[in-house]
C-alpha cells in the first residue's frame, strides 16, 4: 500500500466547529411551520390487561389535533429488530411502565401533555414478574404468551468435569451486573413530515436508517420506498437508538394529520421507556493448571431483557461467545438464558453482552493468579489468544489477533512499570491504593448467520470535489471524518475536498448499522470499491483529454497523470468541468459483504465472529477505607483497533470508554423495584462528571493490522468501555483485598465487604 496522507493523521473532525459553536442542528432542534407536537401515554402499571381505552375527553380538548390508539396502526402493530413483539400502541396488555397506549398530536407540547391526562384507561393489574430466575419457572406469570424464556444458548466443548478434577485451582463465583443507562445527551426525539403523495420523511436520532425504514413501513403497511429516514446527526446513541424509539409514532402522527410532527421525550420518559444494558447474573466456574493455563470454564448466564426482546437474543449469544475472555479454553460448558420480565426493556448497548461476562471472567482470572501466586499480567499473556488459535466456541482465530500486542504495550506503560511506586503513595493514611488489569476482545460486525453488508457512493462534483455517501449514521463517534480520510486517500485528493453524506436513506446507499464496531470497516471497504469504480470511470475520460491510452493514467496527490508523459497532468476539477460541459456526471457505487468465520454453530445466528478488536486496560484506584469510596486516579487503555484511521478519534473513544466503564463499575444502575423505575433522572442515576474522571487516561494504540480491513482497520467503538470495569474492581481488590462480585461497587458495597473481611 502506498503511504497514506490522511489515514493515520489527527484530522480535525468535520463536525467539530459546528458542534462546539452550538450551531449544528440536532433532530430535536428542527421545526416546521404548522407542526404539531406529539406526546405518548405510557402505562400506569408494569403488568396489566387493558380493559378499555377512552380518548373522547382528550379529543375534545381545545388544541388537540388527534388522539391515536392501536386501532389507528394501519400495518403490523409491533416492532422489534429480531421479533416484532413490542406493540406500537398497546391494545390488550401492557408489559412495562414504558409501554405506549395512546398518542396525542396537539398544537403545543403543553396541550398534548394535558390531553394525556384526559385519556381514560381501565387496567386489570397482573402479578409483576421481576426476577429473571423466577420468571423461568413454569409457575411464573407469563409476560408473553410464548413463555418467559426468549432465547437459550448452550455451547459445550471438551470435558469440563474432567478438567475440574485435574486442575490445580478451581474458582467458582456468582456475579451480578447492573442495568446501565445509555444516557445520551439528546433523548429519543425527532420530527417528521409528509407530502401530497404520502411520502414520509423522518428526521430522528438512530443507528440504522434502512432498518428503521423497514420497521416503520411494516407498522404502516406501506412500501418502504415511500419512507425516508434521516439519522445524522444523532446526539449520542451507544446502542440505545438501535431499536425503534419515536419513528413509528412520528409516522403515525403525520399520516393521520397530514401535518409535520415533533416528539421529544423528557429525560424521565426516556429513562422509563428507553433501552438499557441487560442486567445479568453470571455463575462461573473456572479451572487452571499450576502454570496458570486455563483448563476449563463453565458459565451460566441469566440475562434480564425486560418486557420485550429487541436484541436480547443476540446479546445473550454474544455474551456466551465472549464469556471465556480473549483466551484459549479447551473445555467449556456455557449456557445463557435471555428472559422476559416486567423490568423496563433492555437491548443493544456498547459492548453488547461482553461487558457483563468480561467482569466475571477477568475477576476469575485474578483470583486464579492470586491462588497460584502468579503475576496478573503474566497469566493473561499465558492464555491470550494468538492468530490461528481455537477460541472458546471452537472457532479458529483466522483474522488479526492483537491481544498480546496490547498486553506488551500495557506492560511497558509507565503505570504498570512503576506500579509499586504509584501504590505506595496514597493521599491519606485511611486510603489504600491498588492497580488492576483486564483484557477483552470484541466481535466486530454482525457475526455468522446473516450476511453483513454495506455500500457507499462517490460522486465527482462540478467543482472538482467529491461527495461520498455512507448510510451508517454519525452518532458522535466520528465515523464521518474517518470516512472522509479514507476516501481522500483512496481517491488521492485532499480531505478538504470531501463532502460526506451520512445516515440518510434518501441520499446514501444502505451501509447497515452504526453499531457492532462495524461502521469504519464496512464503510471503508465499500468506499474502496466505490473509488475503484470512480477511477475506472475517470480514466477513459482523462485518457481522452490527454490523448494517451487508458492504462497510462495514474492517480496521485490530487492529480491525474500520464505515466509515460508525466507533464501531462489534469486536476479533478478539469475532469469535472469537462464532463459537466458535456452534460455528464460521474457517480459510482461500491458494495461489500463481510467475510465470516468458517465455523457454523447449528441453530445460532450472530455467533461466532471472524474479526475482533482487542484491548488491555489498567486502572489505579484509591479506596477510602472509612467510607468505601473508590476513586480512579489513573488509567491506561491499550486498544488494538487495527489501523487507527484517526488516532485522535481513537483516543477520544478510548477516554470516553474508560469513563463509561468506570460509571458501570462504580456508580451506575437504573433501579427498578416491582416494575417501577426509581432512578428516573440524572439526580439519582449517578453518571461520572468531569471531576470524577481519572486525572490521567493514557491511550496507547497497539495496531495489529487487519488484512481485510480498509488500510488495516477493524473497529474500536465498543471494546474501549469493557475491560476497564473489571480492571477497576480488580484494583479495588489489590488495594483492600476484597473481591467485588457485584457492580456497581458503591461505597456501601465496598464498605460492607471491608467490614465482613475484618470480621472473618
Amino acid at each position: 500500500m502506498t503511504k497514506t496522507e490522511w489515514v493515520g493523521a489527527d484530522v480535525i473532525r468535520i463536525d467539530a466547529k459546528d458542534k462546539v459553536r452550538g450551531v449544528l442542528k440536532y433532530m430535536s432542534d428542527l421545526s416546521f411551520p404548522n407542526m404539531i407536537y406529539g406526546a405518548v401515554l405510557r402505562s400506569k402499571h408494569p403488568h396489566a390487561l387493558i380493559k378499555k381505552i377512552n380518548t373522547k375527553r382528550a379529543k375534545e380538548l381545545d388544541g388537540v389535533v388527534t388522539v391515536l390508539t392501536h386501532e389507528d396502526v394501519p400495518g403490523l402493530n409491533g416492532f422489534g429488530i429480531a421479533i416484532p413483539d413490542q406493540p406500537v400502541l398497546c391494545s390488550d396488555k401492557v408489559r412495562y411502565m414504558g409501554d405506549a397506549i395512546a398518542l396525542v398530536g396537539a398544537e403545543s407540547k403543553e396541550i398534548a401533555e394535558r390531553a394525556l391526562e384526559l385519556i381514560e384507561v381501565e387496567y386489570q393489574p397482573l402479578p409483576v414478574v421481576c426476577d429473571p430466575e423466577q420468571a423461568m419457572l413454569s409457575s411464573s406469570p407469563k409476560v408473553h404468551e410464548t413463555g418467559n424464556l426468549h432465547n437459550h444458548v448452550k455451547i459445550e466443548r471438551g470435558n469440563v468435569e474432567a478438567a475440574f478434577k485435574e486442575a490445580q485451582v478451581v474458582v467458582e463465583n456468582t456475579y451480578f451486573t447492573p442495568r446501565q443507562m445509555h444516557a445520551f445527551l439528546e433523548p429519543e426525539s425527532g420530527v417528521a413530515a409528509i407530502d401530497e403523495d404520502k411520502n414520509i420523511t423522518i428526521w430522528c436520532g438512530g443507528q440504522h436508517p434502512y432498518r428503521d425504514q423497514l420497521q416503520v413501513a411494516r407498522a404502516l403497511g406501506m412500501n418502504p420506498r415511500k419512507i425516508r429516514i434521516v439519522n445524522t446527526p444523532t446526539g449520542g446513541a451507544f446502542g440505545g437508538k438501535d431499536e425503534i424509539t419515536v419513528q413509528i409514532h412520528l409516522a403515525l402522527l403525520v399520516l393521520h394529520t397530514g401535518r409535520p410532527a415533533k416528539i421529544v421525550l423528557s429525560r424521565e420518559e426516556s429513562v422509563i421507556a428507553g433501552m438499557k444494558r441487560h442486567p445479568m447474573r453470571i455463575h462461573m466456574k473456572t479451572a487452571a493448571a499450576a502454570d496458570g493455563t486455563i483448563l476449563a470454564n463453565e458459565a451460566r448466564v441469566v440475562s434480564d431483557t425486560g418486557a420485550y426482546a429487541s436484541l436480547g437474543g443476540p446479546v445473550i449469544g454474544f455474551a456466551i461467545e465472549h464469556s471465556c475472555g480473549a483466551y484459549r479454553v479447551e473445555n467449556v460448558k456455557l449456557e445463557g438464558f435471555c428472559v422476559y420480565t416486567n423490568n423496563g426493556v433492555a437491548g443493544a448497548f456498547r459492548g453488547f453482552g461482553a461487558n457483563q461476562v468480561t467482569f466475571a471472567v477477568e475477576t476469575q482470572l485474578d483470583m486464579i493468579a492470586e491462588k497460584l501466586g502468579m503475576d496478573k499480567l503474566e497469566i493473561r499473556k499465558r492464555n491470550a489468544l494468538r492468530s490461528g488459535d481455537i477460541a472458546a466456541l471452537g472457532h479458529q482465530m483466522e483474522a488479526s489477533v492483537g491481544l498480546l500486542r496490547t498486553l506488551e504495550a500495557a506492560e511497558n506503560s509507565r503505570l504498570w512499570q512503576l506500579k509499586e511506586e504509584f501504590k505506595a503513595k496514597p493521599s491519606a493514611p485511611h486510603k489504600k491504593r491498588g492497580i488492576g488489569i483486564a483484557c477483552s476482545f470484541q466481535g466486530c460486525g454482525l457475526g455468522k448467520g446473516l450476511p453483513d453488508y454495506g455500500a457507499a457512493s462517490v460522486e465527482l462534483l462540478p467543482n472538482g470535489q467529491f461527495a461520498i455517501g455512507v448510510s451508517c449514521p454519525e452518532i458522535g463517534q466520528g465515523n464521518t471524518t474517518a470516512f472522509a480520510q479514507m476516501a481522500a486517500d483512496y481517491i488521492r485528493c485532499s480531505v478538504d475536498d470531501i463532502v460526506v453524506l451520512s445516515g440518510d436513506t434518501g441520499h446514501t446507499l444502505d451501509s447497515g448499522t452504526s453499531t457492532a464496531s462495524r461502521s469504519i470497516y464496512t464503510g471503508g471497504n465499500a468506499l474502496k470499491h466505490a473509488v475503484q469504480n470512480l477511477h475506472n470511470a475517470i480514466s477513459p475520460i482523462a485518457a481522452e483529454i490527454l490523448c494517451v491510452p487508458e492504462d497510462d493514467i495514474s492517480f496521485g496527490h490530487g492529480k491525474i497523470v500520464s505515466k509515460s508523459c508525466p507533464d501531462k497532468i489534469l486536476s479533478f476539477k478539469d475532469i469535472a468541468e469537462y464532463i459537466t460541459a458535456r452534460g455528464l456526471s460521474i457517480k459510482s457505487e461500491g458494495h461489500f459483504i463481510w467475510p465470516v468465520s468458517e465455523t457454523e454453530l447449528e441453530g445460532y445466528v450472530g455467533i461466532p465472529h471472524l474479526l475482533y478488536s482487542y484491548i488491555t486496560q489498567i486502572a489505579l484506584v484509591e479506596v477510602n477505607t472509612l467510607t468505601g469510596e473508590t476513586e480512579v486516579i489513573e488509567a491506561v487503555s491499550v486498544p488494538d483497533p487495527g489501523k487507527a484511521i484517526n488516532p485522535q478519534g481513537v483516543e477520544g473513544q478510548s477516554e470516553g470508554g474508560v469513563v463509561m466503564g468506570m460509571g458501570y463499575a462504580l456508580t451506575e444502575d437504573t433501579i427498578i423495584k416491582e416494575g417501577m423505575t426509581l432512578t428516573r433522572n440524572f439526580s439519582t442515576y449517578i453518571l461520572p462528571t468531569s471531576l470524577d474522571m481519572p486525572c490521567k487516561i493514557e491511550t496507547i494504540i497497539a495496531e495489529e493490522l487487519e488484512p481485510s480491513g480498509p488500510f488495516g482497520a477493524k473497529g474500536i467503538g465498543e471494546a474501549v468501555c469493557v475491560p476497564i470495569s473489571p480492571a477497576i474492581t480488580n484494583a479495588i481488590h489489590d488495594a483492600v483485598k476484597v473481591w467485588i462480585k457485584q457492580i456497581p461497587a458503591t461505597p456501601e458495597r465496598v464498605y460492607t465487604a471491608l467490614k465482613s473481611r475484618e470480621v472473618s
Partner: protein
Amino acid sequence: MTLRFIRPETVREAMEVLHEHKDNSKIVAGATDVMVQRRSEKPVEEKPLLLVDITGISELSYVNFQNGIVRIGAMITHRDIARSAVIHDVAPFFADACLSVGSPQIRTRGTIGGNIVNASPAADSLPPLTALSARLRLISRRGSRDVALCDFFKGPYKTIIEPDEILKEVYFRAPEPSSRCAFLKLGRRESLAIARLSVAALIDVDDSGKISKAAIAPGACLPMPARIAPAEEALVGKIPDEEVVNSASQEVGEEMVRVSGVRWSTEYKKPVACALTKRAIWKALGVDVD
C-alpha cells in the same frame, strides 16, 4: 396556563404582592429548587399560582461585616459566598460548603435564601450555619421578626415561614479569630452530588490546649439541622486526643440513630458518619487527615 409571574424590584413591592396573594403565591429566587419541584406538581386550575420572582431586588444582595456580625442578604448566591473575602476570613467552612453545592451553574443561580427556606435535610449551607448559631430575619408587611436558624425548621422541607414573609437575611456573630473550622461532605460523586452525609465542626482551643468551645453540626442524617450537644460536651474542656475525638464522633452516630431510627442504610451511614465527624474534628484542629 395556570401560572402567573411577577418580578418586583423592591422589597416593599414584593411584600405588598405577597400580602395580597398570600394564599396562592410562591417566592422564586434562583429557581433551582422551585423549577424541579414544580415539574412534579399537578397544576390546579382554580387557583393559578403567582410566582414572585425576587431576583430583581438588589436590596437583598449584600454581605456585611459590622460590629462582629456577618449579615448575608437572601439573594446572595453560593458562588458569591464561595468567593467572599469576608466569609473566607471569618468562616471558611461556610465557603467550603457553598463551593460543594451542585455545579458552577447551580452555584451561580442558587441562593442562600433558597437553600435555607427550601429546608432540605441535605442542604449544604445548613451545617456550617447551624454550627455558627446563625439567625434569620423575616420580613412582611406585618413587620419583621428574627428567629434562630435552629428554631426555623419544623421538619424536612418544612419551616415556620408565613406565606407573606420574605427571608431578608441570615446573620451570625463571627467566631473568635482563634477558632478553627471544617466542613466535610460525602456525596455519590465529585460534583453535582447531593450530600449523603456532611459534618461542620467549629472548635476553639484555649491557651492550655483544652477545647474551650465546640459546635458539631451534621447534615443529611437528621430530619433538620441541629447541633449534637453530647458530641460537643465530649470535647469541651478536654485536650483533644484520639480517645476524646473518637468518643465525640461516636455521639454523632448515636444521635443519628436516636433521631432517625434504624433504616436499611444505617449499617453504612452510622459508622461512616462517625468517621466523617472524626475527620472533620481533626481537620478543624489543624491535623489534616485528607
